[in-house]
């Protein structure tokens, strides 16, 4: 009897393991599946409508991936556009690999969460995907040709990588963090502002960025990039994301300059090492120093002094000269850790000025960029109701920024 049971168990286990490891025989037919790697959303011609462009990866055996762009125009929602994509092309779009969501500049005039809520509703889209705003139309960014033969969305993702964030030049945000700020008591937020610039030059034929087709899916399917198909030397595009767009309650309200972005990153984002230029008046005239700055301590804290709100920025950084636009003695070049006092002072002054400019710009636009309302709610809850609407204008800001030489 025991042997019989054992056999029954083994047979049953084999049959059921087949079920368990078969993925329900639900293999994805790659020929019918559109692996969407990025989505660009622009305001449509008609009021309340959107143009949604999907960049679809085309798997290639050689390892050099290619991608095609498909645009659905005049969709009421992103969900509708995705459904239409399937309906009209026969491709089933899978968004699991969607790592980038780009918004056209025009869309930021309205609450962008009217668009982004699709990605929060769907379990199939990871909220780790990067989000950015494009200068002009977002779909144009997909047509850009990278000088290193990357797929355009992949090139943008690299520009917005966490490494870029660590250098302080770009304020990177993913969907989760952007949504977290939007749904918090603060309601503020920021997104990198991406501009496509035709600057770089590349050589060789452009196999990497050879789109399959592009255009309105219900009207035309035409090859893109007249330049891209040509072989030989040609102009390529680079992506500049050094500016930052500020949001309040989902609407774009202000734009930080590259220097303000750097100062903001040094004060309030996970930037460890920052790079920046400092101009110093010396005997021989103005000298520009290129500094590498290691942020050792940072805080932006709200406190109350004599009943008045005070917001204090504390930054401790260690700087090292990377380069300067003057010829220096061999001793000075060798001892790069010796940063002249006036350079350190100039760095302190510059970042104080830029940080104060970023703060004032955000406050004037009503954007709680530094999470002041959140701090008020969490740490001074009793005063929250009294100050929640006026804190940005009533707060006194203090800047305690100190630089020392990086040993």
């Amino acid at each position: 009897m025991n042997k019989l049971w054992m056999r029954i168990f083994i047979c049953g286990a084999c049959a059921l393991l087949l079920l368990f490891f078969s993925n329900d025989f639900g293999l994805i037919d790659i020929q019918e599946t559109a692996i969407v790697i990025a989505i660009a959303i622009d305001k449509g011609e008609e009021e309340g409508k959107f143009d949604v462009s999907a960049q679809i990866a085309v798997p290639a055996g050689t390892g050099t991936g290619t991608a095609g762009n498909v645009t659905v125009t005049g969709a009421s929602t992103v969900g509708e556009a995705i459904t239409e994509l399937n309906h009209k092309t026969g491709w089933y779009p899978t968004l699991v690999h969607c790592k980038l969501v780009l918004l056209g500049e025009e869309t930021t005039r309205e609450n962008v969460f009217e668009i982004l809520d699709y990605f929060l509703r769907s379990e199939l889209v990871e909220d780790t995907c990067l989000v950015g705003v494009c200068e002009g139309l977002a779909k144009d960014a997909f047509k850009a040709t990278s000088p290193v033969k990357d797929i355009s969305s992949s090139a943008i993702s690299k520009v917005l990588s966490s490494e870029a964030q660590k250098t302080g030049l770009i304020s990177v945000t993913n969907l989760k963090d952007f949504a977290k700020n939007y749904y918090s008591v603060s309601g503020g937020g920021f997104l990198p502002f991406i501009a496509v610039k035709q600057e770089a030059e590349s050589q060789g034929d452009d196999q990497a960025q050879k789109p399959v087709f592009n255009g309105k899916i219900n009207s035309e399917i035409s090859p893109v990039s007249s330049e891209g198909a040509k072989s030989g030397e040609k102009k390529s595009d680079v992506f500049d994301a050094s500016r930052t767009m500020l949001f309040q309650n989902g609407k774009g309200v202000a734009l930080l300059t590259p220097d303000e972005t750097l100062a903001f990153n040094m004060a309030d984002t996970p930037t460890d090492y920052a790079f920046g230029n400092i101009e110093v008046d010396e005997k021989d005239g103005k000298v520009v120093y290129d500094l590498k700055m290691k942020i050792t301590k940072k805080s932006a804290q709200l406190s109350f002094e004599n009943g008045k709100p005070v917001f204090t920025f504390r930054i401790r950084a260690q700087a090292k000269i990377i380069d300067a636009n003057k010829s220096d003695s061999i001793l000075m070049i060798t001892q790069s850790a010796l940063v002249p006092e006036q350079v350190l002072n100039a760095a302190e002054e510059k970042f104080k000025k830029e940080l104060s400019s970023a703060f004032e710009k955000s406050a004037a636009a009503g954007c709680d960029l530094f999470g002041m309302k959140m701090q008020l709610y969490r740490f001074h809850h009793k005063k929250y109701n009294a100050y929640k609407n006026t804190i940005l204008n009533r707060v006194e800001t203090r800047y305690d920024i100190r630089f020392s030489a990086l040993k």
Partner: protein
Amino acid sequence: MDKIKIRQICFLFAVMMPVTKMLVYPTTLTYYVKNDLLISAFCNLLIEGVIVGLIMLLAKKTDKSFFSLIEDRFGNLTARIVYAVCALFFFASALLPLAEQKLFVMQVFYENVPSIISFAPFFFVCFFACTKGFKSIGRAADLCLPVFAVSFTVILLLSLPHADFSALLPITAVSPLTIGKGSLFSVNWFTDCFFLLFFLGNFKYEKNASKKVILSFAAGAFFILIFLAVFYGVFADIAIRQQNAIAQLPKYTTAFTSLGRLDYLFLFALTLVMIFYLCVPIQLCVHCICKTFKNCRPTLPSLAVNAAMLGLVILLNRSFNELQTFLTSQAWFVFLIFAYLLPVLALLLPKKILPKYKNKKEKLYE
């Protein structure tokens, strides 16, 4: 006798108990109490800890099983009726965790939504466990200790850098009434102490057993609280949309951008622990049925219970929300009565102190 060891009960509470609170429970709790989820969870755990302590006190007083205690006091028929009702309770209480687990496996581990039958292998494992009784619970607990220790630590370490614990402030932002409501409506996740009542008489009460079990329970409670704190620290105001919490936490690790979701290895391992723990109420259900039918062999009851459970899971395949709403916001008092009130009443069951303890006490006073 001695089907399960004190050590294994300790492991059950320390490492298996926390896993079932890592899927839908954090989201549900956030829905009710927002950032005060730790206070609400602490209330539940404190009450459950007290019940565990009381049951261990009962175990110290008597070496009889719960069935024998009722039988001695009220007769065999009453004991069988109580066990039959308890079997129903275990069956009902296993339903929501099973549905959670099914959703978790299907949403997280599959690229496209698989059919319900893909979850059927669980019932095969469960059937096997049910036929083996308490011994298999103990062995599973032994096995789960290292698996949980490694997987939970890794997942926590991956998630910690993204957690901002200030999100838990201000404390008591919601009213105590709301916190109480949150605790009541999540009481269905805190019925673990009730298992201990049925282990009575099936383990040998050794020296410091109560301390060990209570400390293990405290360790399990600590893991739950730390998990909830990290969960809310990572997601704050959008925590409410993070179903399958354990799978959502570690995915923000920067390295995964290029390496892929390596954390899935540890999620798979934790799923194994969950599977073993999900078997426990069904095993106890079968145990109660066997006792009701005069110690019958467990094969047929196991088959019947698992088949019925599979049938219900299929039937309720698209009704998870309705099932959850019913069990949390309407049937919470049933969980209170069985998991908390019944163990307290069980304290009144022993007729007299065992002679061996009596002798010890007399010696002590001499």
